[in-house]
């Protein structure tokens, strides 16, 4: 069985979140749910890895619950994982596993914060309460980059290496399909498309333009 996997969580977190999602998907699938397959390409038709796709709708928004156990650690002066997709209201921990201190910050409108020089796990996790792209950096180490995509829907997924994104058990209805990639410039619009989900599986192809190198 193929299942959507939430990238960027540790095993424990993956296991817990996965259980929740399976339960959720089961309930929807019982009402005639379908799979949506999104293949993402760059300008020149080259398959693009690491893109995130999600389906928004009012019904979906009503189903959103914060995730638990989400974290972005700092290992060897890198954010691990560098990209995390969370639902609105999710609290994310930023454990520092390096011996040097970090100063994690974000000036993004979706969540502006900074965690002044610290080591170990900061006392309070950061709660991402608004949907949007949160651009993270370390004020001390310019090369450390991470993104938190805060979504207002339970239907999201991220493409694995060489494979299309599959959103499983999406109940029929009208959705707005959005595709994002960390290489999209700040303030650049996401790839968006209205899709109608029926009982039949749906395959969508998205071409992302204007990606930064």
């Amino acid at each position: 069985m193929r299942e959507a996997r939430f990238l960027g969580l540790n095993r424990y977190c993956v296991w817990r979140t996965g259980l929740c999602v399976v339960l959720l998907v089961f309930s929807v699938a019982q009402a005639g749910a379908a799979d949506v397959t999104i293949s993402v390409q760059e300008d020149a038709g080259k398959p693009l890895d690491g893109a995130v796709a999600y389906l928004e709708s009012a019904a979906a928004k009503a189903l959103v619950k914060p995730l638990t156990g989400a974290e972005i650690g700092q290992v060897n002066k890198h954010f691990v994982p560098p990209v995390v997709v969370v639902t609105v209201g999710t609290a994310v921990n930023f454990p520092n596993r390096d011996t040097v201190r970090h100063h994690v910050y974000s000036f993004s409108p979706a969540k502006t914060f900074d965690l002044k020089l610290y080591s170990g796990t900061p006392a309070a996790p950061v709660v991402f309460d608004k949907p949007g792209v949160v651009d993270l950096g370390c004020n001390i180490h310019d090369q450390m980059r991470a993104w938190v995509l805060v979504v207002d829907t339970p239907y999201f997924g991220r493409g694995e290496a060489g494979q299309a994104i599959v959103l499983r058990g999406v109940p029929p209805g009208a959705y707005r399909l959005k595709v994002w990639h960390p290489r999209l410039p700040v303030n650049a619009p996401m790839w968006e498309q209205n899709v109608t989900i029926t009982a039949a599986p749906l395959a969508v192809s998205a071409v992302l333009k204007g990606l930064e190198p």
Partner: protein
Amino acid sequence: MSTAGFWAKRLGKLGLARRTALVSVGLLFCIQLVVQFFIRDRIENSVQHNVMVALDSSANVWGRLLDQNAEKLALGASVLAADFGFRSAISSGDQETIQSALENSQQRIGATVAAIFDTNFELKTFNGGVPDPALISSLQNFARSMAKMTVKSQSMPVHGRLHQFVSTPIKAPSTIGWIVMGFPIDQALSADMQSLTGAKLLLYQTGAARALLFSSVAGGAQLPVSTLSGDVGRIQIAGEDYAFKRINQRTDMVAVDAYLLAPLEDARAAFGYMKNVLLLIDVAALVLFALGSIELARRVSQPLNALMEDAQRLAIGDYSQKIPDFGRQDEVGNFARAFDQMRQGIQSSQAEVQRLAYWDRLTGLPNRAQFTGRLEDLLRSAGPDAALSVMVMDLDRFKHINDVLGYAFGDRVLQIMAQRIAALLDGSDRMVCRLGGCNFAVVLPRGGIDAALELAKAINLALEEPVRHEGQAVDLRVGVGVCSHVGAFDGTLADTLIGRAEVAMYAAKRSHSGLKVYDPSLDSASAQTLSMLGELKQAISHNELRLFLQPKIQLRTDQVVAAEALVRWVHPARGMVPPMDFIPFAEQTGFIRHITIWMIDALARSWHDLQPPAGQGPLRVAVNLSTRDLMDPEFPAKLEQVLQQHAVPRAGLCLEITESAIMDDPVRAEATLNELANAGYKLSIDDFGTGYSSLAYLKRLPVSELKIDKSFVMGMEGSESDAQIVKSTIDLAHNLGLSVVAEGIENDAIYAKLRVLNCDEGQGYFMSKPLPVTDFVAWRARWLVQHGVMVDA
């Protein structure tokens, strides 16, 4: 006159020293002028070249400075853009906060213009005066180019000053926008340029209105904006020379013309010291050269001047002073020494000339010149009643002494004679000299005729002692002429006195009296002689000469076989002039040659008339030749011409020559005789026996006849020795193959005796005196009849 000629003349008037100095200094000056000009030209070239090279490197420096500045500014800007506070302020979204954050950053970094563009290059914030749309657009483009990383910075004029703009992204941490900052760089850059390269800067804004942006050149602001044109060149600003170079347009420079200027004076200053030193060296060289040249030339000209004074002394005949050699061993010294040797040479040769001029070498007596001078002095200083005598003497037979006993003995005779006369006069004021040849003269300064006669007697006495020569005693006899004068004279009389004494002497010799005192009548005779030459010429042209013939008889047959031609002069006033009165004179003056030719011509004219009737042998006519004729190399040709003219055969002529005529110059005489003999003429020796020539000598001559002198023939009757001489002569002549003619047959007895002695022919008054041509023919007819001479059939 040409200018060059003028200067050459002016230069020539200067002394050698000045001229040499002037010319060499002038040349050196010209060379230095050329060198100076060349060096200065090279220096100026070098200055300009150096300046241009310096400007090139200044342009590179300018580029580097711009790049460095850009990096510095970019670094500053990026540091600023990375500032957390700044970034958080920018991210706040509050325009006022953003504005103030930008201002703050600007102040921190010193940017006068700053702008923030978002990721779509939309202007978010601007700070730095009026946001002119063109400027904004320009900055926008720049930010775009920066985002594409095609440029690093951009320089352009803003608000009348050159600004350099840099741009840097604002990262949060993704690029959320671009901040562009502009810095006025003109002053700082110009100061850097000035301190690094010394170049000055002129910046103009280009575009619609060209305007001065910046000038670090004094007076550059006043320069009209379009004065500078071209990429390189020279320009004068506020009295200063500059080389300028337009900086190649850089892609990151917009709307700016930048010129770098380098003052040439600075570059020239580097050479200034060298130029001054060179000039100093040149001037010093010129001065030293001038001094050296003057000194050198002076070392030549001073001795020259001294030598010139010496030469002037020599010119006036003062040879006594030694010419100094200035103690120098060089050419000048050598020249002075050579000059002194010349002085000594001239001095000694002058003395020799003096000696030759005034002394007789043979006898050591004063010569005629000194004698005349002395005489002139005496005459000048003589009082009104002073008496003075001049005596001239001539040695008798001196020519014969020379001929017979040799010239060496003749010389000795003259020396002895001189010694004896000098010994007589020794200690007196009388002076003896040798006038020439065997002529001596004595002056008696205070003596009249009596004193002179007394002296003459004493001299004769002194000469009485014969001179011995190889056992022979030679008597010395002199003919003396005396001329005395009483009263005042002037010096010009000296020659006259000597001449009168000579006239008297010749008269004495002629009269064999031994001594004659001058008498004016003697003088007129000599004057007569002097005019004779003209009269002789007239005699030929006026046909006053007559041809006379004296027959020669063949003794054996009594036949008239020949005749001797003789000349007679019928003078229109004096009547018949005897040959003795004009022939010696003619021989002496050389006029005899004309007479000889006249004779031959007259003879050739009559020759055919003189020939006997057919059957008899041809009549041979003899002509006397003088020594002058023998010396004339053209004589044979003249003779030939005359004979041809009248068709006379050569054999019809006989040429008679006296021994003495040959002996004057035997070599030339013999040459002429040989030529005549070879031509076929019969030659005869005349007056044989009076000279000193031997038969052996005559044998060498091409003669075929010998004429015995009449003195022997005439003496035959009374003197047995003369008869013996005639006989031996005839025998000897016959032995030598010569025929013999006897002259001076005056009677029948001699005629007969000669016939007995086998003499070939005879001539004399016994047969006939010389006759005119017509008379001769008549006489011959009579003679032949008288002597019953048979005419050959």
